[in-house]
């Protein structure tokens, strides 16, 4: 059974279409990165999956309808949102008590063990903690829940690089175990590239790219081409080209590596580069003319 299955997911705010017929299928045990510019519909997608927003279309998360069965769904789903949503008046001990009191799958000892590795005091109120500590606290609560799906919406926004790295390391080492599914959105694409198993680009409410990371590496290649090879390289229809230190880097989609190797150094592009090519970039021809 797919962990998340959406068909024709649509969401309209007044006259603004936030999501236009999105199809989505996330299998169990995957780590999917949902990447898109601001206002692309990422948070709307997550909101629909979490039962926070009404939507049109078919959506099943762990076999349930999130909008009508949110409370049941939340037995198996955890969520860390884009900004710290822990109530500022709450004490750390109260947060532990409350989640332990309402959640059947919360392992308090596990959360305590995680908190013991931080500087967070039990008696502190959330408002007294630094932004990084609040995220650590939320992560401690969430990691102690034996959930099937973890949804992260910009979980590391505004954190310094040490917290960000620790966040994803902890997630990967202590939480992810191949049976859980993780859905993550972030603007810091390069930091999560190595943990993802799948990636999806979303722009203006539509899915513009969907691929597993294995396919991603087979399909896309980046070649640094010397000026004399440029015309031969362009003949292979790169989807994007950019200049770095006076040399031209061309991005190819679905061109055999054997044909690219003679043109220059071939390597796999980063998700960020592909993102710019697919969403932010203009077509290669126009770009070439402009350059």
């Amino acid at each position, binding site marked *: 059974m797919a962990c998340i299955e959406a068909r024709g997911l649509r969401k309209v705010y007044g006259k603004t279409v936030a999501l236009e017929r999105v199809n989505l299928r996330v299998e169990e045990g995957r780590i999917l990165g949902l990447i898109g510019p601001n206002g692309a519909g990422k948070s709307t997608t997550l909101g629909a999956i979490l039962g*926070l927003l009404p939507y049109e279309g078919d959506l099943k998360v762990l076999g349930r309808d999130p909008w009508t069965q949110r409370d049941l769904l939340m037995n198996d789903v955890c969520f860390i949102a884009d900004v710290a949503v822990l109530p500022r008046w709450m004490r750390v001990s109260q947060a532990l008590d409350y989640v332990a009191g309402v959640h059947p*799958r919360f392992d308090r000892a596990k959360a305590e063990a995680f908190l013991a590795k931080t500087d967070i005091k039990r008696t502190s109120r959330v408002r007294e903690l630094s932004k990084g500590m609040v995220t650590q606290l939320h992560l401690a609560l969430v990691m102690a829940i034996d959930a099937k799906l973890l949804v992260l919406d910009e979980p590391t926004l505004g954190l310094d690089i040490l917290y960000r790295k620790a966040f994803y390391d902890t997630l990967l080492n202590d939480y992810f175990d191949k049976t859980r599914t993780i859905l993550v959105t972030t603007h810091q694409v390069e930091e999560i590239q190595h943990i993802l198993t799948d990636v999806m680009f979303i722009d203006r409410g539509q899915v513009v790219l969907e691929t597993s990371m294995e396919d991603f590496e087979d399909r896309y290649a980046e070649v640094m081409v010397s000026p004399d090879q440029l015309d031969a390289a362009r003949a292979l229809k790169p989807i994007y080209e950019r200049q770095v230190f006076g040399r031209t880097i061309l991005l190819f989609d679905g061109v055999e590596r054997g044909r690219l190797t003679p043109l220059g150094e071939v390597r796999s592009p980063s998700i960020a580069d592909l993102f710019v090519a697919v969403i932010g970039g203009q077509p290669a021809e126009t770009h070439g003319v402009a350059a």
Partner: protein
Amino acid sequence: MSAVSDMTPDAAPASASRARPRPLLWSVRRELWENQAIWIAPLCVAAVIIFGLTVAVFAPHRTSLSTVHRTSVIVAQSVAKNPSAGSTPAVAAPPNGAPTVATETVSKTPLTPAQRRALTIMPFNIVAVAMIVTMFLVSIFYCLGAMFNERRDRSILFWKSLPVPDLTAVLAKLIVPMAILPLVTVVVTVGTQLTMLLIGLATHGRDPDVAVSIPLGEMTLVLLYGLATLTLWWAPVYAWLLLVSGWAKRAPFLWAVLPPIAVAVAEKLAFNTTYVGAVIQSRLTGSFTEAFAPFDKAGVRAGALPTISLAQIDAGKFLSAPGLWVGLIVAAALLALTVWLRREREPI
């Protein structure tokens, strides 16, 4: 795979050690954590009253609780005037000729036993009334914030990320004004009255009347009944406030208060009638006349007015009052809307 791990011996005790989830209980507790005014406000009012009384009693130029008595007489007179305001415009001089107006003469003129008793009891009733007013004010502000604050600080995203149904969350918020605050009010009121009794005994030790004439047990029973009926009567008010709190994007107080007033004013201007105003007024203040038998006119004249006796409890009349049941049905409808809104509304 999960079935296998569930059967392993070390997995069983781990799941057994987790307590059964109690979403409603913990949702109520979370309301109490967030809204400490629920118990701090009544305690502050009690502290102010006790402080005032202590100063009055121990101030050097006072000899007894006479200051309290004087205040009581003023209050007794104003209370006595109100219920009879319709029938007898001015309070007639009681047949026994005891003073009811000239407060200066209170401590000099001999009082009838009934008046003595009323005056002794009066401060205790003032405490109860002050506590009920406090309860209502705290309830109003609690309800107006209950569904609003969690949307404003976006913590609703955290609450909704846990397996707690919206109905449970809203019920927990309703339980605070419907059960928690009345209970706090009873405990603090009785505690304050007992403290006052002790202060009275300490300074009035030679006057056995003081202790004997305070029917604390009866007063507590009347208070319990009065608060239970009042709370049921006010249920639609609380439900309305919760609904507005869950709906408004800003200024829930104004949205809760101004529209009913506007409707009443519009009705008055358009039709020169006051039905809406009457409904609002009876909803706010009507529970007393529905729940208790009226005061005995003769008793009022004798100065025994301000204390409600057990004999005045009329549960049958209250339970058969259409206003009670209409109010409860309206409250249930408003509550259903509030639950729907909690699912529907997004953070502000």
